[in-house]
């Protein structure tokens, strides 16, 4: 869910330093790791690392459900992981080979266990929230000093959206995230699987539809940073990237991220080993390398997402560990909700509703 780039998947085959036949193929989200870590893994283990990236959970899921993907390590998000485990796409982890497993954070493990019972098939790589990115100056200009910047009122109240329409609002093109948010706004269970409840999201989204500039899952990073739009409903780390890009450009744009006070979706990206992985042994070595406290801290310090590794926290820079937008405080953490995968029939209802909202058909 992170810095998503449309287009063909870029393949980044790193030159192996060691002359060994052994290799491990990792398939992760784009812009989601410090590439120096990849070189470090090869140097430490002598295993050739082939690192490919993808841009959406659906792309990964199609590969997993087709089978014979050829990958040893993949990184689906929680709900997708759960469904793929049911389909038999992943093998249980061999805990004896993961000596660093003790570094994991029990708070996160308790939450990821709802997707992967007992965390038998996966380890947490990173996690984040879905919330509001605002261009502080422009939103204040449109709505006044008391603009509800940290509330869902900002994007689901048509009166506010009407005033924001001129400066531009982007929503994620991700029904499994936006429909729960709409349900949460009207006080329904965001994780409802009842088609009658899900249908209530339609009225909420349709009321603000005329004021939404675009449904897209990555363009908002640049658009926010350049000041082309004033609000984006998007993923935490992406909006933080927009904030940093705007600060670097010194273009006078101030971007802020908040997880809505009414509650925000918390998602988890999990590393898992496909059932038919060609080299499960090397895959475990890669997972154990990622579980190392220093390595995981390096990754988080680079991509600005929180991780599920308790031991890594002492190596995190203050910009990351001290930022409540990345590591929420207790009160915000309490307010975060998670979702579970929709059954096939309900999924169809959700996709259909989303098509209707986007295209009006």
């Amino acid at each position, binding site marked *: 869910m992170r810095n998503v780039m449309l287009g063909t998947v870029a393949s980044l085959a790193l030159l192996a330093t060691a002359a060994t036949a052994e290799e491990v193929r990792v398939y992760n989200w784009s812009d989601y790791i410090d590439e120096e870590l990849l070189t470090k893994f090869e140097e430490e283990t002598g295993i050739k690392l082939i690192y490919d990236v993808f841009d959406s959970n659906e792309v990964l899921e199609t590969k997993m459900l087709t089978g014979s993907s050829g990958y040893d390590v993949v990184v689906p998000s929680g709900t997708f992981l759960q469904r793929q485990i049911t389909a038999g796409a992943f093998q249980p982890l061999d805990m004896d080979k993961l000596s660093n497993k003790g570094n994991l954070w029990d708070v996160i493990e308790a939450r990821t266990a709802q997707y992967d019972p007992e965390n038998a098939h996966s380890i947490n790589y990173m996690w984040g929230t879905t919330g509001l990115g605002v261009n502080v100056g422009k939103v204040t200009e449109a709505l006044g000093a008391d603009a509800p910047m940290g509330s869902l009122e900002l994007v689901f109240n048509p009166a506010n959206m009407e005033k924001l329409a001129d400066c531009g609002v982007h929503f994620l093109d991700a*029904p499994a995230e936006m429909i729960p948010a709409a349900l949460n706004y009207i006080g329904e269970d965001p994780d409802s699987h009842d088609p009658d409840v899900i249908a209530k999201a339609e009225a909420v989204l349709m009321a603000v539809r005329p004021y939404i500039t*675009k449904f897209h899952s990555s363009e908002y990073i640049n658009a926010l940073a350049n000041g082309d739009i004033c609000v984006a409903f998007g993923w935490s780390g992406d909006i933080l990237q927009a904030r940093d890009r705007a600060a670097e450009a010194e273009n006078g744009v101030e971007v802020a991220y908040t997880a809505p006070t009414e509650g925000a979706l918390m998602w988890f990206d999990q590393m898992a080993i496909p059932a038919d992985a060609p080299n499960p042994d090397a895959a475990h070595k890669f997972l154990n390398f990622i579980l190392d406290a220093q390595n995981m801290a390096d990754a988080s310090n680079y991509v600005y997402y929180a991780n599920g590794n308790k031991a890594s926290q002492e190596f995190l820079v203050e910009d990351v560990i001290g930022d409540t937008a990345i590591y929420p405080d207790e009160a915000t953490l309490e307010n975060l909700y998670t979702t579970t995968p929709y059954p*096939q029939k309900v*999924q169809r209802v959700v996709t259909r509703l989303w098509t209707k909202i*986007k295209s009006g058909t």
Partner: protein
Amino acid sequence: MRRAVLIAVPYLWLLALFLIPFFMVFKISMSDAILAIPPYGPTMKDGFRELISQLDFENFVFLTTDDLYWKAYLSSLKIAFIATVLTLMVGYPVAYAMARAPEEWRPTLMMLVILPFWTSFLIRVYAWIGILSTNGFLNQFLMGIGVISEPLTILNTNTAVYIGIIYTYVPFMILPIYAALDRLDASLIEAAEDLGCSRFKAFWLITFPLSKNGVFAGCFLVFIPALGEFVIPSLLGGSSTLMIGKVLFEEFSFNRDWPVASAVAVVLLLILIVPIVLFQMNQQRAQEAEQ
């Protein structure tokens, strides 16, 4: 013997590249979506008899229950039709100019038409995003020379989809028309003009009818891929651009419903077969006429 082999080759080609893939998709369209690898069942693993007994037309019936599908087919047909007419209007004059150009220029002109294919199709479509966006080259240029004062919204509309299709497929229109015009006997035009035809009338009565086969070939080469186009509407079109290629993608990835996605594809193929058969008949007639 030799004759049999010669006849067998095109049929084998048809079998390997059309019929076998078609039946694979058709079989999936009659199965049910399940959560497994692969995400549909039954498969050959369940035994042949079991497989046959469980196949049904349920997914095709489903397509009739939701107006999304026929709206998407109709919208795709409309977009493909308009785009084909526009491509013809752009391509014909270019082909005509090429055919009338001095002999020594023609290889160069031909090269210019083919040259864009050296760059990836995807990159070329991406480039249009940079040209058409609100702060893109086109708007900056038009505002710079003072034609417009407010930037035009072209990207994420159907206009951008038409531009994308015309740009991408115009070589497929130019080449067959050029081939037809190139063979045209110039003395026919001279004769028409000697007999009192205006240049325009000569074109309309002689040149255009004789290039008709090229026009037909070009139109089908543009219309058929444009109908199922996915990349151009998803990159350049807006969320209200409804095309069957996008619907198919959503069925396949968001709904994980390969059987319904396959049913959509089978129906799309049936829609395409009509123009393809017309095209074939036209080609055959043209060949017979030549003999």
